[in-house]
């Protein structure tokens, strides 16, 4: 990767253009009335096609992606994105479909929706899916709306609180707040699981439900799930499953069978669609049969959700089929446990035992702190990994530990890649023990060094300004 400094505005030269449009064959329609016309200058860049191609190619070369290297990013499931899926989504018979065309004209698209609904229901044990939500958090919000609608339809109007574990993804409480629900936090036990005794007094006639991810964000299976489901249901609440951590359960365990009533999936995680540098995603929401009537009253996106993403995920499901689904879950869990066991003598493992698709270290065992030299932190380890050609793990999450390093390898990495990652993690631990300053200064080999984030937030520059 090399540093490239231009912005597209700085490639601009008066009079250049990169478009090719047909000749105007129509009589001139006349101008808009002056009062409705744009008066402000239209300062868009003026660039030729080769300049545009070169600029964005140069920008791309400052980026790391799954196709570049390994992303051990906890809770993000950065698996390989199969290329056939891209090609299928770009077919003109799909890409050219107007969203308001009636079902009689879009039978192929409708069939994709029907089959996708059935496939996701089979994989998760839910009864029916809506494919309208455009991302995971959007799915959470949709699911919580369905949760509230269910209670409202039953005339049960006082259920305005939702229980969220302290280890939950940040989107869980945020989605609850957008949905008008008050968040009640339930603590985790020393072993990382939900404290069932602490949960009991929280359950009452004001509880709409509980949001959980299982395995949780520590990668640990919530072993008391049966008891939790029974308690929540007894109290009249519903169970929401955050599908961000679905990958280890693929082909092995179904959330519907564990008692969950509502769930979302992240097609851009579990179902291999590319993350796109922050979207587009897709967050289908599945419900148990008793909630099906609530679906029609909730409209959360413009048309049918992110069809292009749904097509890619469907191609992925067809490539796995009945035969290979289980390999996804098993190999993801195998890789995670192998890394954990290979590193736990140099990184602090707060909770030992078998994990699922991910696990959390609480920083280095020996951070190299001595005299007045501070030890290497989790941030330092993360930045040093970039020097060695790996993406960093998720850091400082979950909030249960101060130096959290959350590692999720996925099933698509070879043993060689995983061994190379382990070797580098061990090397970094050795570097820290010897001289933590190497880590404090990292990264050294990336296109830029650590940025001044404080100034960025204090004096925000959020758009291009000519010097």
């Amino acid at each position: 990767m090399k540093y490239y400094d231009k912005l597209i505005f700085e490639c601009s030269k008066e009079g250049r253009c990169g478009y090719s449009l047909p000749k105007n064959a129509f009589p001139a329609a006349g101008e808009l009335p002056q009062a409705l016309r744009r008066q402000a200058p239209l300062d868009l860049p003026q660039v030729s096609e080769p300049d545009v191609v070169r600029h964005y190619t140069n920008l791309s070369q400052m980026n790391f992606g799954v196709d570049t290297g390994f992303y051990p990013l906890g809770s993000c499931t950065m698996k390989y994105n199969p290329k056939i899926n891209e090609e299928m989504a770009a077919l003109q018979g799909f890409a050219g479909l107007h969203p308001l065309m009636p079902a009689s004209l879009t039978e192929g698209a409708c069939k994709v929706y029907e089959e996708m609904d059935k496939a996701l229901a089979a994989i998760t044990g839910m009864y029916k899916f809506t494919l309208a939500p455009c991302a995971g958090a959007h799915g959470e919000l949709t699911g919580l709306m369905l949760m509230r609608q269910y209670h409202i339809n039953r005339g049960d109007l006082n259920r305005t609180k939702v229980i969220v574990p302290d280890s939950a993804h940040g989107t869980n409480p945020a989605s609850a707040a957008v949905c008008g629900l008050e968040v009640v936090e339930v603590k985790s036990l020393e072993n990382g699981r939900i404290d069932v005794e602490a949960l009991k007094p929280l359950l009452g006639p004001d509880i709409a439900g509980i949001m959980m991810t299982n395995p949780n964000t520590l990668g640990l299976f919530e072993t008391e799930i049966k008891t939790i489901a029974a308690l929540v249901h007894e109290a009249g609440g519903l169970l929401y499953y955050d599908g961000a951590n679905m990958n280890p359960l693929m082909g092995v365990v179904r959330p519907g069978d564990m008692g969950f009533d509502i769930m979302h999936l992240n097609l851009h995680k579990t179902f291999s669609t590319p993350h796109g540098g922050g979207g587009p995603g897709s967050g289908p929401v599945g419900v148990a049969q008793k909630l099906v009537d609530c679906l029609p009253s909730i409209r959360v996106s413009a048309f049918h959700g992110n069809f292009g993403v749904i097509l890619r995920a469907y191609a992925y499901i067809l490539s796995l089929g009945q035969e290979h689904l289980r390999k996804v879950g098993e190999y993801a869990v195998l890789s995670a446990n192998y890394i954990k066991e290979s590193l736990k003598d140099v990184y602090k493992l707060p909770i030992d035992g078998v994990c699922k698709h991910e696990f959390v270290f609480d920083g280095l065992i020996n951070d190299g702190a001595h005299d007045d030299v501070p030890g290497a932190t989790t941030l330092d380890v993360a930045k040093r990994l970039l020097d060695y050609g790996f993406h960093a793990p998720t850091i400082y999450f979950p909030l249960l530990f101060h130096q959290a390093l959350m590692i999720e390898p996925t099933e698509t990495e070879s043993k060689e890649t995983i061994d190379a990652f382990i070797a580098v993690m061990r090397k970094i631990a050795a570097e820290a023990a010897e001289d933590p300053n190497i880590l404090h200064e990292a990264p050294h080999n990336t296109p830029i060094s650590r940025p001044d984030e404080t100034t960025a937030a204090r004096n925000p520059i959020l758009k291009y300004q000519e010097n």
Partner: protein
Amino acid sequence: MLDKIGVKKLDDLYSDVPAEFLHKGAYALPPAMSEQEIRDYFASLEAMNAKLKVFVGAGAYDHYTPSVIPYLCSRSEFLTAYTPYQCEISQGTLRYIFEYQSLICTLTGLDVSNASLYDGPTAAAEAMKMAIACTRKKTRVLLSKGLLPQVREVVETYARFHGVEIGYVPVADGQTSLEALKAELAKDDVAGVIVPSVNRYGIVEDHAGFADAIHAQKALLIEYCDPSALAVVKTPGEWDADIAVGDGQPLGLPLCYGGPYVGFMAVKKDHMRKMPGRIVGQTVDKEGRRVFVLTLQAREQHIKREKATSNICSNESLMALWVTIYLSLMGPEGLREVNRLSCDGAHYLYGELLKTGQFEEVFPGKPFLKEFVLKPKQPKLQERLEKAGFFAALPTEEGYVSFCVTEKRTKAEIDALVKAVKEG
């Protein structure tokens, strides 16, 4: 690997799962397909969709996509990257988002843009929530009846659960009524008003006096815009709007049955810290070089949890790149030319359709660009045109039919559509 872990077989990795939850038997899925089989199957699905010439807009516009865009957007460094949390290896993503933000500010005439939202309707819903957050003790948000139905329905859904009351401003003579708006504002409970820059009849609205009336009540003016049309119509900034939202789809995104699209939002500087979503800012690295980072993160869910301005996490980053490349290729002249071609084509179609004698004008003399409505004299026009190979004459809730012409529609196609109308 199993030895290292200290287990004998893969099943042992699930020993912590209660046996009753381990799925027994086969999953109800089709058998695995090879790549060739997937290709053939998708070709068969694709063939089941009708291939029609599109003469409908209504929130999704069939503009031309220059081939450079999919070419560049499929570069794996963009396509397969995660959200740019590790800025040292994400400068490509961060730079194009910064460019995108700058371009959205230029188009809308407002100060600050975020890195994108899901689509136009959810962007409007976020603006609704923002209006409530920015104004004290106000509980109601007004929607113009001139907004597209999907925008109203999504905002209504969000509002119902977020505890926001929705009011409506009727349309009079083809545009949001200022008089009716003033009557609603007089109730002193309005936090914000969402009005379309170009409404669902295709009419370019005149918002003179809107900002003054709304600001007098300390409420926010929110303009819902077609960003392509902003090259020629008065900008939200020029109308003194506080927030601009809309869908970036008209900027070269394929129709793709409704998504992925990209919601945009730009605001006046005062409201910057209440804005939802990611924002990229410029700063320097240790060597003093210009670099870009995610900033103002204290607004976001991963920091503030239930106190965040929104729950949004993944947005539509790659589609923001799509828009950025589109605007770079088109430049000011190209974007104006797209509007000119679409507008001239639409006016030509409007005139030719009237000449058939099968329509009545609904809003004579009202200014429109690429989209318009007429009142048909015969029923089931849409179905008849489908048989002739056109997707056109989309019925509105009032029983009008809506047409749209983009630069992709040739004169020959328009003439053929008119001929099909005549032949009934």
